[in-house]
């Protein structure tokens, strides 16, 4: 059902009445209104923050867990299953659980209190911590998924190459950094692109946990699109946000693929 996305373009130049199903051309009015709305710019910033704040930890953790799982210790199948399980749960359900993981008396603060001399805040009521809270539930939900992806990438690496490096006297860290990671880089690129696309789509967590708030602290482009298009019935404005979302994501994806030439190694 991706075809309709093309209709966003004409709609974004219209004032369209969803109920009467009529519209009139208004040129760039919708875009001008967006550019003049500070909330829109916050949504752009939060979307980018969310992309970095979920993709980077997700990939780091996934590589770490996959390297450990790949040692095939006893019971690694069970560990893998438990780690993957959150992926199949409805995000709405996870978000409800995480509301009370992140409350001021919640588990996250309890655990942090054990290691750090901090008095926990109510994450979702704090404009500084609400967005990291959204990142945390997203990481929890998807870390097992990316671990499985990286693990299958690891298992595609021929044993001979690692054996040869070992015989040449490479230590464990050296082996991981200079041999395994470069051979894994195509998988990592794939995970990076997919996780950034996924971060642009985050919606359920925000709807359930913060409603874009407090204030506009967790307003993202998709949530802004929802408000404009479906809560306020500004169809034209919602369509122009859609166009920007799509163009922005295409730009970001292109940039990642372009930069990939510098760090992705393909096996001969």
């Amino acid at each position, binding site marked *: 059902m991706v075809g309709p996305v093309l209709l966003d373009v004409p709609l974004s130049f219209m004032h369209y009445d969803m109920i009467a199903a009529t519209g009139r051309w208004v040129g760039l009015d919708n875009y001008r209104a967006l550019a003049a709305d500070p909330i829109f710019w916050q949504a752009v910033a939060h979307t980018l923050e969310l992309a970095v704040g979920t993709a980077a930890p997700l990939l780091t953790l996934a590589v770490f867990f996959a390297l450990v799982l790949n040692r095939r210790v006893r019971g690694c199948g069970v560990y893998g299953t438990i780690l993957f399980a959150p992926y199949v749960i409805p995000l709405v359900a996870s978000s409800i659980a995480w509301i009370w993981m992140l409350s001021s008396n919640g588990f996250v603060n309890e655990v942090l209190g054990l290691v750090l001399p901090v008095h926990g805040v109510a994450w979702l009521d704090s404009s500084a911590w609400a967005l990291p809270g959204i990142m945390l539930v997203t990481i929890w939900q998807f870390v097992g998924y990316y671990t499985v992806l990286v693990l299958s990438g690891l298992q595609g690496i021929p044993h001979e190459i690692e054996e040869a490096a070992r015989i040449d006297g490479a230590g464990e860290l050296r082996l991981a950094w200079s041999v395994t990671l470069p051979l894994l880089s195509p*998988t990592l690129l794939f995970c990076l692109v997919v996780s950034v696309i996924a971060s642009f789509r985050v919606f359920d967590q925000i709807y359930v946990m913060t409603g874009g708030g407090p204030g506009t602290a967790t307003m993202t482009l998709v949530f802004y699109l929802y408000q404009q298009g479906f809560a306020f019935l500004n169809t034209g404005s919602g369509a122009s946000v859609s166009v920007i979302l799509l163009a922005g994501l295409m730009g970001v994806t292109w940039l990642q693929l372009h930069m990939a030439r510098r760090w992705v190694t393909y096996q001969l």
Partner: protein
Amino acid sequence: MTGRRLRRGLAAHAVLTAAAVFAAVPLLWLVSLSLQEPEAVFRYPPRFIPDRLLWSSYPSAWRAQPFARMYVNSVVTSTLIILGQIVTSALAAYALTQLRFRGRGLAFLFIISTMMVPIQATFIPAYIIVSRLHWIDTYWALVMPFVASGFGVFLMRQAFLVVPRELIEAARIDGASHRIILTRILLPLARPTVITLAALSFVFHYNDFFWPLIVTNSARVRTLPIGLATMILTEGAHGTQWNQVMAADVFVIVPILIGFVFLQRHLTPTALTTGVK
């Protein structure tokens, strides 16, 4: 040597145990809260093991929203979507792998590029189309937009590509039609992929929230995630009954977790290595 291996093994177990605890704690906390009094969420310090188990939250939660109806809606619409996707993906993959036609490469490129579109960017035009068709608040709106999937075509094509050409040639020489080749040779050989597509698609649509939220407005067609979200957003006379919300959360999660545990042996890892949409 054994001492070093043992230490490394222990370190691996420590890391994996920490990861498993990280994954499991929110779910255990959910179960625990569902069995305590509604105010337990506000208690400081939090109590993990309930004093006594208050099972009454479960029947109350079941009555708070028409959950029986919502189960039916979720399962029926997800199943219809899966069936549609298997049919359309198999036909498209057949054309892309077995037939030669002008623009085949371009068609494939277009199909996989759809996997990169953030789905919500399509919602405004899709909503207008669906409402013009008078499908708002019907199963049609929940099912029809998803019966074709770029991801499904991609997966199925990968599976068809590894079937040896000689097999297809032999069947063709024996006079097999396109329909026979697809249903008797390719699809049975692609069984693991079909199962994986079905499982991933079920998870995605059973869990889907944004689209069902905007195209439904009555309990008659609403799905489980909407029921859950409605429970926290509509406060009763005594505020949100958090133990009931948690109980509802548990009975929405449990069936899909059980399904996952039973099905995971059949999932092909290669199919998982491609993003789902």
